[in-house]
């Protein structure tokens, strides 16, 4: 019997809102699939979109970026920078024909443990349906 595909999901989250939201999901024992690997950063403003590409290069099947809701940023405006960058980056990826279903951008506050559970569950299920992400690796192999 072949093993069912279990996606690897990289979540870049900010330290002050989404990370604490994920902690709250734990405190409230809200169960979700174990596929997500959280990388804690101070702020979504720190998330350069190279990091998203790097995550796929490293073998992620989906990437989640999540920070504070607009107006709630611990650093006053980092999330706005992230949002602006995301709008531009998204266009670029669409133009390049990237599978946009593999990138997710949300706001999850420190009070939204339930939302963290829902978002992670949905992304995991969706990525399971999409199957493994191989396009990047295929591209690299084609070049070698």
């Amino acid at each position, binding site marked *: 019997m072949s093993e069912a595909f279990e996606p*690897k999901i*990289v979540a870049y989250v900010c330290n002050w809102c989404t*990370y*604490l939201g*994920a*902690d*709250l*999901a*734990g*405190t409230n*024992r*809200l*169960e*979700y699939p*174990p596929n997500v*690997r*959280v*990388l*804690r*950063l*101070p*702020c979504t*403003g*720190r*998330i*350069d*979109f190279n*990091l998203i590409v*790097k*995550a796929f*290069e*490293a*073998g*992620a099947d989906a990437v989640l970026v999540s920070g504070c809701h607009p107006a709630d940023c*611990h*650093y*006053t*405006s*980092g999330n706005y*920078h992230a949002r602006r*960058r995301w709008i531009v980056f998204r266009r670029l990826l669409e133009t390049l024909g990237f599978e946009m279903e593999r990138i997710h951008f949300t706001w999850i506050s420190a009070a939204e443990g339930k939302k963290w*559970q829902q978002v992670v569950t949905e992304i995991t299920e969706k990525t399971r349906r999409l199957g493994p992400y191989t396009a990047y690796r295929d591209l690299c192999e084609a070049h070698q």
Partner: protein
Amino acid sequence: MARIGVFTCWCGENIARTVDVDQVSAAIAKLPGVRASVNYKYMCSDPGQALVREKIAAEQLDAVVVASCSPHMHLRTFRKTAEAAGVNAYRVEMANIREQCSWVHHDRAAATAKAVDLVRIAVAKVRWDEALEPIRVPVTRKALVIGGGVAGIQAALDIADAGYQVALVEREPSIGGKMAGLSETFPTLDCSQCILTPRMVDVGQHPRIRLHSYSEVESVSGFVGNFTVTIRQKARYVDTAKCTGCGECWNSCPIKKIPSEFDYRLGFRPAIYIPFPQAVPARPVIDKENCTRLKKGKGCGFCEKKCQAGAIRFDDQDKLVTEEVGAIVVATGFKLYSIGKQQENESRSGYGEYGYGEYKDVIDGLQFERLVSASGPTGGRIARPSDGREPKNVVFISCVGSRDNAKGVPYCSKICCMYTAKHAMLYKHKVHDGQAHVFYMDVRAGGKNYEEFVRRAIEQDGARYYRGRVSRIYEENGKLIVRGADTLAGEPVTIEADLVVLAAAITPAAGVRDLARKLNVGYDEYGFLLESHPKLRPVETASAGVFICGACQGPKDIPESVAQASAAASKALIMLSRDEMTREPEVARIDEKNCAACFACVRTCPYHAIERGEVLTPRGVFVKHTARVNPGLCMGCGTCVSICPSKSADLAGFSEQQIYAELEALV
């Protein structure tokens, strides 16, 4: 090669029930650089921490990973533990295998596999952690207080009494703020002036308080512990050092009919004036808009002739002075929501149907305070502004602008229920045959002796309370016809009133948004300043070293403003009590060799922590421009790192290299 110790915690059964901690320790022990990988029941307990210290010593570890709960729970704990054993505090990482693993997964095999991954990520990260030292910043042991109302006065006195210098900036000619204009205060009916003016005198005479009255903050630069504040001292046309405050000048001024700002235009003042007799400083200013001499450049000059001290300076100009301070307390207070038809710079539609600004006998709560005050334009006799007659029926309307999404602001202004009850009471004490009518939505009287006070207004002083709104006020035969509803009786109410008092909503003082931008402090959609945390850091702001108190943070009454002012003062004192302060060293830095000097980071930094600098040779010859981070200001958000097109910016503790290493550990 780093010498890493990994300490996996059971957290009793919290982790161990779902995660096989032995398997985690064993898997991690195989990673390169890991010299010790052990687990223990409670790693945060004394024996747990002792285990960490023992292993550090025995294996000569230089980096530590603790796999346990959230770093928000115990990172500080384990940093201290490691530091005590000689490992740099910033070479400690945590893997969150409780909140984000054992508590949210049930499948033991999957949870264990994830825990191993999480610890592997942390080990990959810690390898790249640099040894950092807390940033030490010298502190200028002096405070700036902005706003000289009751909150600013309290904060200034507390800081000065503790032994530190204070510069107090007040934009009006005198300190005292809104409270100086109040009649008596709820719930004790103390005379406002009697309790406030001695404090004002204390400020004026305090050897450690420098008062900049009739002044405004022009600009602020620097950072926590080291602010440079430029203050604009507006031209007063009076030499305050020479002036004795004798009053000859204002008594001799021939222009006497200028509506008084202090009396909210119910009384008059001359062109050279002090706002009220107890003003601090007791030094007049000349109102250049109305002074004949200043308008025409010649003539009049009565004040100059009368002044024996020779203190009049018609050629006075605004002066800019600077103050170096370590901490800043903002106490800029409130103004009333503009209730007239004309809504200057307001998106809100106002209450034209109440006739404020149209009928002289429709006034706001602060104007009523002046009518009742012994120091007011009528000497405390309650008289209608239109004809000076004593009103026999007075209607008080609460929530004018408050709790009104359609025309005002959605929030409750908090103090109006109480001052309206007080107004009804004070009115009855002065006009024994008069009747007070109060229209209200709810009576919110939370506070010590507050509810009892409202009951007294109703039961002893006979104020009639109607639960309902007023739809319209119009004038008929010299009376103000107030048409409203009594929703408890279920019927419309019409009152022929002689005077109507509107309890207008509390809004932040004019200009507070500009000030907030200078200080880098956030504000909400109404302009109230934002605290760092609504519960646990209520007087701190996002800008380190800047504290807030009083009504600039939200509507509040006198006792709350005073308590918050003392809180802000104590936070400022914590900073001032040390020669230097330490800050987290996880801040950004620029590779100056690589920097292309595009300054995208300078424009992006929310803290203005990046400056334009120059790279010089050791002999001082200019080489190139570069961006440069001020570690005293940087809060470590990392926005500059992602904006930098030449990859010259990086963030200690969250470097590019570290994140790449974490990603590689994933697969």
